[in-house]
Structure formats: C-alpha cells, structure tokens
C-alpha cells in the first residue's frame, strides 16, 4: 500500500496548485496562438511547450537540485542547507530561496552539491537553460544564424535607411522611461535594469530581447520573451493603424527610386566595417553584433558555403529548439503570475507603437530634407521584426498604390532595425550590466 501512497503523493493532482494550473493554461494558449494563429511558431511552440513542462507539479523539470530539494520533505537536509545559509533550521523555503540567490557562487555550488548528495538532481529544462541562456550562448548563436540569413543588399543600396532603423529604437528608450515613471509613481516595482530589459521589447528582435534580459533581468525573462515574440507576430495588427494615421495618402503613394545593384565586394566589406566600428566605439554591443557580422560574412564571402549552410540550418534550428524550451522554463507561476507581467505586456505594445511612429515620422522628416523621395511607410519597418514589418509596409503601400512595391525598399530599414536594437542593447548592458 505504501507504493500507492507514494504514487499518489508524487502525482500531479496531489501537487497541483492554482498557479501551476493557470500556467499550464498559459502554455496551451501560447501553443494555440503559435499553431492556429501562426504567431512566430518557431519560438512560441517550444516556449509554450516548455512552459507546460516547467509547471508539471512534482516533476521539477525547470528546477536545480537545490530548488527541488526545497520541495522535498527531508527535514535533516533542510536544516543543513539552512545552517549553511546562516538561517534557522525552520526557515521557510521562500527564505532559503532568497538567501540562496544572494549567496556567492562557491556557497551556491556547495548547496547544490548537498542537494545532489541527498539524491536530488537538476531538471532537464534547467540544464537546457544553463547551457543556452545563462551562458549567453544561445541567443548569440541564433544571431549568427540570422546574420547568415540576412541580405544587406537593400541597405547598402540606400544607406540612409539606417537612420530609420535608428529612429525606431526610440520605442525602446521611451518605454524604458515609461517603466521607470510607473515605478516612480509606485504602480510597479521595476529597477532601472528591469526597465531597460522591458524597453528592449520595442526592439522587435527576439534574440536581442532574450540576451538583454538574461543579463539585466533574468527573473522577467519569461514574460519579456513571450511579449517580444507575441508582439512581433502582431505587427500586422499593431502597425497599420499607426502608419495610416501619421501619413497622408499622397505620402503613402510615393514611388521610390529603383535600388542599384550591389556587388559582392561591398557585401563582404560591410560586416567588417560594422565590426570595426563596433570594436572601436561600442564594445558592449560586440557579442551580439560580432556574431551577427560573422554570420553575414560567412554568407557573403562565398568560400565557406558549408559553414554558412550549417549556421542557417542545423545549428540555428537545434539552438532554437533548446532556446525555446529554456525560455519556457522561466514560465513558472511564481515568476510569471505577477502583477508586473501585466505591466510588461502593456509596456511592450506601447514600445512597438512608439517605435513605429518614430520611424514613420523621421522618414517624413528625411523626405522634407532630401530631394530623393522616401515613402514614409518604410520608416515603420525600422522596428525590425524581420521580415514581417517590411511586408506590412509593402501591403499598406499597395493599398494606396497597387503598382508600388515597397518590399525591397523596406528591407533596408528592416535590417537596420536589427543593428539599431543591438546597438541599444550594447549601450544598456554597458551602462547597467555587470
């Protein structure tokens, strides 16, 4: 009979609390959005599934050995852990967790060792998290693959569009300020680091958002990644009203000059130029932009097709699977079902809207100052969300003039937006990280 009792005690139903149930529901909702609504499915399918796995009561897939041991009923072990942390033997699990997080690396390792000695082990999702996100490697490898998939041709043909990519980053910084203002007003309790990580949602770049929040605000990573990918998927709904509101029909009808052809040498030299500028001026952006330029150089140099193909296929796909599951491992009730998450979701959509507006307005300004016409719609592509935002520009443009194809013109600001948010990320990590 003891077996039956043990099985029941270990079963999910016995351990299920409201938080875990809600989070499993959130995971299913993300899967629904990803599969049925095609919301960025490459990331949201693994994230949603990882979120469900992380919340299975009793399985502890997203926990370290130490965290698992706090769920277990071993009083002697607990007293031992508490003693090492300088707490009384009857300290709550919450108190032990908090003390653990502020402990040093050596003490943490020692506590994990004690938990492992007692038979607890690291959950598999935690192991994925440690290797792909805590190390910082996962988003960088994705970024390398994105670089290997990126065509800088349209940008090189019209380098002015880099300014549109810069303008759209205003969404990031305005949102940062908004988060800080809401905290100052006492609505939320975000630190400056939290605010920066939330702002980066406005960069509309998944790996950048994951990278920044893994450094500045790991506790918010789940909510930030979900918001970033969800809003990237919602770009076709969020952007068009703003684009229409800020432009006249005449502006939307502007036909742009045919892009000149770009040769291979320019394509090879551009990632190196960008790398050197980053190296000299913004080393904080070097991990992200360095890997991005490396991927792009492999693509364009024409002599390492094997490596470029690996970066664009096997490597990025494998990394995406584990990165998604790892992000999902952060969707645990204690960290996601907080009032702050609502703030993150609200601020995220504001960030997208401001970025879109800034891009369009600067494009209008450039149109005044320059004699080469720019259709202001392509400013909206500066938020990145490659290539969705560029397609939205194209579609809104076609509404105004059915013969005016803006897609290629919008690809310039679109990839410029990737560079822009990586630059913004580098600045924030330099000033707030460490």
């Amino acid at each position, binding site marked *: 009979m003891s077996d039956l009792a043990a099985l029941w005690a270990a079963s999910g139903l016995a351990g299920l609390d409201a938080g875990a149930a809600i989070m499993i529901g959130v995971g299913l909702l993300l899967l629904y959005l990803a599969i049925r609504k095609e919301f960025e499915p490459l990331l949201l399918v693994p994230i949603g599934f990882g979120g469900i796995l992380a919340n299975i009561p009793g399985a502890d897939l997203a926990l370290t050995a130490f965290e698992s041991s706090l769920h277990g009923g071993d009083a002697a072990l607990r007293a031992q852990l508490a003693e090492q942390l300088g707490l009384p033997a009857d300290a709550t699990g919450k108190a032990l967790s908090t003390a653990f997080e502020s402990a040093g690396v050596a003490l943490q390792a020692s506590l994990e060792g004690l938990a492992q000695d007692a038979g607890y082990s690291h959950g598999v999702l935690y192991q994925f998290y440690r290797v792909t996100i805590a190390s910082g490697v996962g988003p960088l490898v994705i970024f390398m693959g994105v670089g290997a998939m990126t*065509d800088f041709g349209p*940008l090189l043909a019209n380098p002015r569009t*880099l300014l549109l990519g810069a303008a759209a980053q205003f969404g990031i910084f305005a949102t940062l300020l908004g988060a800080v203002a809401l905290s100052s007003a006492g609505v939320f309790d975000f630190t400056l680091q939290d605010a920066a990580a939330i702002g980066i949602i406005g960069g509309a770049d998944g790996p950048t958002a994951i990278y920044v929040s893994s450094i500045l605000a790991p506790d918010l990573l789940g909510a930030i990644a979900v918001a970033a990918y969800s809003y990237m998927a919602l770009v076709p709904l969020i952007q068009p009203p703003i684009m229409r509101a800020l432009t006249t029909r005449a502006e939307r009808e502007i036909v742009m000059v045919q892009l000149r052809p770009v040769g291979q040498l*320019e394509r090879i030299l551009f990632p190196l130029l960008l790398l050197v500028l980053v190296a000299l001026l913004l080393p904080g952006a070097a991990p992200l932009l360095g890997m991005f330029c490396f991927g792009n150089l492999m693509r364009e140099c024409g002599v390492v097709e094997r490596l470029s193909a690996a970066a664009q296929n096997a490597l990025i796909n494998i990394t995406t699977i584990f990165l998604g599951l790892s992000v999902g491992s952060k969707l645990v009730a204690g960290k996601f079902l907080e009032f702050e998450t609502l703030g993150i979701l609200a601020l995220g959509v504001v960030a997208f809207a401001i970025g879109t507006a800034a891009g369009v307005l600067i494009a209008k300004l450039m149109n005044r100052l320059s004699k080469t016409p720019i259709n202001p719609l392509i400013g909206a592509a500066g938020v990145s969300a490659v290539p969705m935002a560029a397609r939205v520009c194209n579609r809104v443009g076609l509404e105004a003039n059915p013969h005016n194809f803006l897609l290629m013109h919008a690809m310039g600001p679109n990839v410029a937006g990737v560079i822009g948010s990586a*630059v913004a990320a580098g600045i924030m990590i330099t000033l707030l990280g460490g």
Partner: protein
Amino acid sequence: MEESLLQEGLDLMLFGMLTVVLFLALLVLATSALSAAVRRFAPPAPAPIAAPRSDAAAATDPSPAVVAAITAAIVRHRHATARRKEGP
C-alpha cells in the same frame, strides 16, 4: 543614490538614443564612403539586387511541371531518409 530613478531613466534615454543615432549616422557615412571606394576602385559586374546568387543556377528555368515532379521527389526522398528505419 544621488539621482532619482526617474532622473536616471531620463538620462539613459537621452544618452542612449543619442548614441544610437550617432552610431548609425556614422555608419551611414562610413558605408557611403565604402561603397564609393569600392565602386571607384573595383567596380562590380552588374547583378540585379533582388537576385541572390543561387538564382543564377535556376536560370535554366525548368517548366513548373518538372519542378513539381522534382519537388515531389525531393520531399519523398527527404521523407524516406527521415523515416525511422531502425528504432534508435
């Protein structure tokens, strides 16, 4: 903390946005200079921008029916290789 959180946020916004704009503006200049130099000293053979290298290979342009048949064969081939031959 000598500054309030709000003040820090404002500073960060101003400096951050300024740096982004300056960096990308510098990149505009550098890229334009690069392009000018390349086109002056090593003019590229003209190639349409929208055509990635691989399209050159596709220029033989098989008929849609042939492409469909080939695609089917590739899919079947891939499917076959993806099959679980022995249960690993």
